[in-house]
């Protein structure tokens, strides 16, 4: 009995193929239908930077991709700016420099500082701000009506009630005033009188100094939306060309989609290539997706809800976002399953908490 078992074991050792052999055999059989069916897909590790919101980082498998365009689309109060600032906070604390191209001049530095962003490392470019707009005149003119003042007492017996100057000053400059009143024809000689020849003064033409015309003098009205966008696009081009900025945020979140969608697609393609070359994270905040296929990641921000756990304080907002498109989504295997695969999670929820709400 023992000898038989031993023999069987020996036969099994020689006849049963190894797992690798079986895998090769199966792959060879399936090669026409599924190439390299059982070989795991080589994993490409793409560098990412965390956003600082754990729920979003889990959803995005680490954070936002480096060297690519990430588009954050959504209406107002959906949390795009909050996520962007939280993301910048991580970068600036690593000693990197970032840039915020503010198309509608909406960035609030106090808010950025509250989010933990070191403002010394953030280059802020405000587009479309005219000089008069930059410094609003808040000066409040205050004057009391006359009835609140004590009227000056009129002194009797004095010239002009004692309020005027000395009478002798009244005749000062009188001859000049009189001659000024007399028109030239009144003092001109009449026809019978001998007439002096009045020599006409030679007219001298002085060259008028003219302002030097430069391109800056010919700017269009910078407060118009398209002018702002054009400025921002030129600035972004310059920043991407200069290189060295780890993140560039193009904030078009307050620009209406009809203006934002006018930006040609070639611009986004150019930005994508430049971002890839300089290894910068390019964040695009919009109301509606406009970078199309040039963006690697499109995050759709859904309208959130205000948290109402306090009756007297605004404590924050509950946000929702959805990954609408990801360009290089990593497939776990190249085997096509027979069953319908379960839907992967592509939405996240998180809460923001206002500074004054304290620890909860």
């Amino acid at each position, binding site marked *: 009995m023992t000898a038989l078992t031993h023999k069987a074991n020996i036969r099994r050792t020689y006849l049963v193929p190894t797992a690798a052999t079986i895998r090769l055999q199966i792959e060879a059989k399936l090669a026409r239908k599924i190439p390299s069916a059982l070989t795991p897909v080589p994993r490409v590790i793409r560098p990412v930077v965390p956003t*600082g919101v754990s729920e979003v980082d889990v959803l995005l498998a680490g954070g936002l991709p480096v060297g690519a365009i990430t588009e954050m689309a959504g*209406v*107002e*109060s959906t949390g795009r*700016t*909050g*996520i962007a600032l*939280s993301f910048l*906070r991580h970068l600036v*604390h690593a*000693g990197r*420099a970032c840039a915020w191209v503010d198309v509608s*001049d*909406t*960035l*609030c*530095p*106090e*808010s*950025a500082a*509250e989010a*933990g962003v*070191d*403002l*010394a*490392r*953030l280059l*802020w*470019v*405000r587009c479309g*701000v005219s000089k008069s*707009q930059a410094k609003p005149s808040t*000066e*409040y003119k205050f004057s009391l009506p006359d009835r609140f003042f004590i009227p000056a007492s009129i002194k009797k017996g004095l010239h002009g009630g004692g309020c005027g100057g000395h009478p002798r000053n009244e005749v000062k400059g009188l001859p000049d005033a009189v001659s000024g009143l007399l028109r030239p024809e009144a003092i001109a000689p009449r026809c019978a009188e001998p007439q002096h020849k009045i020599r006409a003064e030679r007219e001298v033409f002085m060259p008028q*100094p*003219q302002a*030097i*015309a*430069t391109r800056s003098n010919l700017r269009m009205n*910078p407060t118009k939306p398209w002018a702002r966008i054009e400025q921002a696009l030129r600035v972004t081009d*310059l*920043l991407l*060309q*200069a290189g*060295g*900025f*780890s993140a560039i945020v193009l904030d078009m979140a*307050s620009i209406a989609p009809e203006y934002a969608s006018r930006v040609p697609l070639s611009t986004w393609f150019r930005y994508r290539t430049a971002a890839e070359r300089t*290894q910068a994270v390019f964040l695009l905040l919009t109301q509606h997706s406009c970078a199309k296929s040039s963006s690697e990641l499109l995050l759709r921000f859904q309208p*959130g*809800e*205000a948290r109402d756990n*306090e009756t007297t*304080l*605004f404590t*924050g*907002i509950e946000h929702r976002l959805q990954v609408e498109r990801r360009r290089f989504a990593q497939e776990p295997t190249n085997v096509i399953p027979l069953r319908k695969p379960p839907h992967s999670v592509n939405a996240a929820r998180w*809460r*923001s908490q*206002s500074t004054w709400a304290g620890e909860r």
Partner: protein
Amino acid sequence: MTKHEIYACLYAKEFPAQALLRLRPELRSKPCVVMEGEPPLEEICSLTRKARSLGMSRGMTRVEVDTFSEVIVLQRSLKDEATARAVLLECAGCYSPRVENWDYERSFLCAIDIAGTTGLFGPPATLARNLLTRVGTLGLTACVAVSSNFHAAVAVAKGPLPISVRIIPTGEESKALAALPLTVLDLTEEQAQTFALWGINTLGMLAALPEKELISRIGQAGKRLRQMARGEMPHLFQPVEPVFTLVERMELDSPVELLDALMFVVNVMLEQIILRATARVLALASVSVTLALEGGTTYTRTVQPALPTNDRQVWLKLLHLDLESHPPQAAILAVELDAESGSTSQIQLGLFSPQLPESSRLDVTLARIRAIVGDENVGRAVLTDTHQLDGFRIEPFSISSADPSALSSAPMRPAMRRLRPAETVFVTLQSERPKAFTFRERRYSVESAYGPWLTGGEWWTATLWGSEQWDLAVRTHDGVMLCVCLIRDLLRNQWQIVGLYD
């Protein structure tokens, strides 16, 4: 005279023409004359070799000059000459701290005490050649004479011999001077006439005259002249201290209105300034451009990059962008560049330090951005100590070298998006609390209102302010939610939306 005395005399003739052509390199190969005097009575005061070969000479009037074609006529500029003199003196000062300046009307002459410099700069011949090379890079031509007697060096330098470097060995001064004409001695008219009558034409002939008889005829001046002719005249050295200033000035031939044309001139001036700064191992920290405009006004702009640099292209681009965004209001008559020097320290980045923008490239980029969006709209925000809205100022952006602070864990904050300017809204109130309002043509009803938070300040000045802040969660009838910051201006009694929480 001590045994160790040795002087190098630097002499540049036709100085009015040289000073003008220094910053006009394109004219150096052409015949140029420099005119001096009031317009109808102008005369040539200096001319180039090419102009002389055409038959022109000093003292010709304007009418005579007009008979020559292809001659470039320039007006004498004393300010340009003063700048060129300062540049040459400063160049001479690089070889010795003891430099004596002799002011001539139409030439430059300075004597350098080079005793004891052999260890630093080599023998006198090498020093003289290096000095001439350096003067050549400044756009000037000169000659150098080295002698142990001061006056001998001066006389040989002023001599007509076309040799740029002349070394007179000690003890052979009289031999070297013998062939020189008497004009090198700065004789008075009377003395020149007397010597001409006597038939004395060269220094050798003057040196051979008996001393006592000469003194008895023309006085003590005769003794001095004879000593100079023999190379024995002692000299009390009176050194000047050349001030190191990086200033270049140029008066333009005609008023310039185009900035691009001006940049050609600025380019040459910058080249000279950078050359002088580099010779002292310095870099330019800031450059001020002062433009003299038509109408007698001046216009000054200063450019200061984050780090001192000697890159001419960077400076040119920065100056161009600055002048383009702040153009002068009239045509330009003269340009003056005044540079401040700084150390040429370079920032050494670590191997593992994060990627940061390159300093000089960032300066140019920022200048370009400033030209697009305006000066006050680029930079880093610095918060001011106030509770007022928009309590910040913009400062120029530079790469911070300080270590970043540690990242602390903090919950995510709702960010505010400011509306600049704030949008005025009409608010419906219910028991003194906002109930509904219309904003951007949509009607919003208030779901929750938090407030009022009263703020105010500066009641002691005319810029007093006071407001009542409300944080609102509002919704339209179709369910769109907004979180807004509403403010009631207490001075104007006006409701405004100042920001949206995002």
